[in-house]
């Protein structure tokens, strides 16, 4: 694994009365899409704000790009899209973009030409001299997204990037995120919608009530959490499949329908071995499918039904996205 780009080391943040983030440690490797997952109020935004140096942690340390110190020192290399979007409503689109790039340290002329390029790419060229408040919500979101990308950051931090996006723009956002990773950029994004995280993330960290529940590569998490299921379908002859199913070293539980069976694998068992044994037993298979538990199920198991309720009932707009 390459050197982590973002490191949180036992970071804690307390607000009057409650601990928003509790001794959270995590490492984001470079050139991956990293998901910070958790129910509402889990501490995702607070964690991101600490990474960005918008608020200071009470305890623990933040490191970026292999150095100590949080976001502002590296702001020219980070693109940040906060959860609560906002632009100067009365400024012209192009001026806002140039200004926001300038405060990231991009020279004015370069900022201007890049802004024009991006506006063109996202179909907003005709709007560049309009005031921000004349634009639709969706267009404003695009403008804000452009402002995140103008200085060509190595690390892009997106707080709930899909919230409030219509399906078309959510698709654009998803494509852009994937394109960024293809170009070797690192993306850290937070979400409470597991379906998106499952499709996009290479690595992830699930937090609830400010604490880390699990982190690591998506595939590892799936392997170690929630167990594996296999669905087997027979084409006429089940052969000696029953013997295979009865091996408690391989199969923990079986739900046999004769022509069809659902197996829950024993801890540490390898589905490939079962497949071999079944073929060896003379069974004719029409189907052998590894059923991974969905991230959603893992999440619910980990976070608990109470917190999960908030997570599986995201706001209507986000659900459509």
């Amino acid at each position: 694994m390459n050197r982590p780009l973002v490191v949180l080391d036992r970071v804690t943040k307390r607000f009057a009365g409650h601990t928003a983030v509790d001794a959270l440690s995590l490492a984001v490797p470079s050139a991956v899409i990293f998901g910070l997952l958790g129910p509402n109020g889990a501490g995702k935004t607070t964690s991101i704000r600490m990474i960005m140096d918008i608020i200071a942690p009470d305890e623990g340390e933040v490191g970026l790009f292999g150095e100590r110190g949080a976001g502002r020192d590296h702001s020219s290399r980070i693109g940040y899209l906060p959860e609560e979007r906002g632009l100067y409503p009365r400024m012209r689109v192009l001026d806002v973009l140039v200004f926001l790039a300038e405060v990231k340290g991009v020279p004015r002329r370069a900022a201007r030409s890049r802004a024009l390029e991006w506006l063109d790419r996202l179909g907003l060229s005709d709007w560049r001299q309009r005031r921000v408040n004349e634009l639709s919500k969706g267009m404003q979101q695009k403008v804000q997204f452009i402002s995140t990308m103008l200085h060509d950051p190595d690390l892009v931090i997106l707080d709930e990037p899909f919230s409030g996006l219509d399906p078309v723009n959510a698709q654009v956002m998803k494509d852009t995120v994937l394109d960024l990773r293809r170009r070797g950029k690192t993306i850290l994004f937070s979400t409470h919608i597991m379906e998106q995280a499952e499709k996009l993330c290479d690595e992830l960290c699930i937090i609830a009530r400010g604490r880390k529940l699990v982190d690591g590569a998506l595939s590892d998490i799936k392997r170690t959490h929630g167990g594996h299921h296999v669905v087997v379908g027979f084409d006429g002859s089940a052969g000696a499949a029953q013997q295979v199913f009865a091996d408690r070293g391989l199969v923990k539980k079986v739900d046999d329908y004769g022509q069809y069976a659902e197996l829950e694998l024993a801890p540490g068992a390898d589905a490939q071995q079962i497949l071999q044994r079944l073929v060896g037993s003379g069974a004719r298979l029409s189907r052998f499918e590894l059923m991974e538990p969905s991230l959603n199920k893992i999440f619910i198991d980990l976070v608990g039904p109470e917190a999960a309720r908030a997570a599986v009932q995201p706001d209507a707009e986000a659900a459509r996205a």
Partner: protein
Amino acid sequence: MRKVWAVVRREFVERVRKKSFWVMALLGPVFFAAIFLLPLLMSTGGGVKRLVVVDRTTTTLGALVAARLDSSQRFFVVGRVPGGPGVEDSLAREVGVKRIDGFLVLSDALTASGHAEYRASNVSSLEDVGLLRETLGRLAERARLERAGVDPAMVARAQIRVSLDTKKITGGRTTEESAGQSFSLAYFMMLILYISLLLYGVQVMGSVIEEKTSRIIEVLVSSLRPFQLLLGKLLGVGAVSLVQFAIWGASGRLLLSQRAALVSRMGGADPEVGQVFQVPHVSGATALVFIAFFLGGFFLYSAMFAAVAATCSTEQEARQSQVPVTVLIMIAFFGSFATLANPESRLAVTLSLVPFTSPIATPARWAAGNLTALDVIASLALLIAGTVLVTWIAARIYRVGILMTGKRPNLKELVRWVRA
């Protein structure tokens, strides 16, 4: 530094592009023109009163009064009629239908007991009544003296008016500045300082609130330190105010230089009347004092306005919370105004040393009295020290406040923010 510069540029460009900036820029000269020209126009146009003199005197005094009034700029004597039954009633009707503006009833009582009567549709014009009183008084006086056998030439000499020239002494040298001029200079400097401090302070406040309510603040503070942002904002709005002053100064100067031409074109007045308002002379030193104290006051008050705005979540909230700051500026203005007549009093000296009041008090005292350079420097040094301290406190409140939403902090929390 380049980041601060970007903030300065944004604040400046966005403001100068606004219509309200140019409205203000134009209103200034219009305001000046009104001040310079209105007294002239008012004293020339429209002011001539048509008058009938009802002469019941047994001497030539009535005729003398009528002639003297008619030669004045303010009255046109339509006629002189002898007194008789019903004359006054019919003249009152004439006033009613606006054929004449009023009539003056004279009798021998004028010389005997100094009594006369003026009836008109408008008797509230101090200048009209003053002129009448003076004319009647002088002529009655002369009539009495002459009746007592005093030589008319002697009377004429005795009645020569006094014209009191007032010249201000600055730094031991007599200047061409009159008392009226230094008062009006002090007054206008105070007024402009008061309005500008409020105006630009409130602009800084609006700018902070806008960034807070639009949530763009979060992106900004992830790239800039809050202090850099605050500094850029103050410098940007400050630059706008200097440009505004430059426009006002240049247009004021232009208006003054063209004043005579303007007046003559607008109805041609007696140049003497022009002295109703005395145009102050603004020296380079005065301009320097004005700008220095404006900038000091601007940074002091704008930093406070920014801190207030940072603790508020909406514009309405900010408008209520700014009251203590606004009251401070008002104290500075009215305190300076009250001590203008006596610029050496202890209160005046105190006001010009306290940083919250000195931005208005010291320039006013400079214009009205004669502060030495040392006085001004002491006052300015205190102002700068106060500004640095207040800005430091304000920046600490600002830093925490801009990211807070919801409930406004109480005093205890504010103290914690400053200490943190």
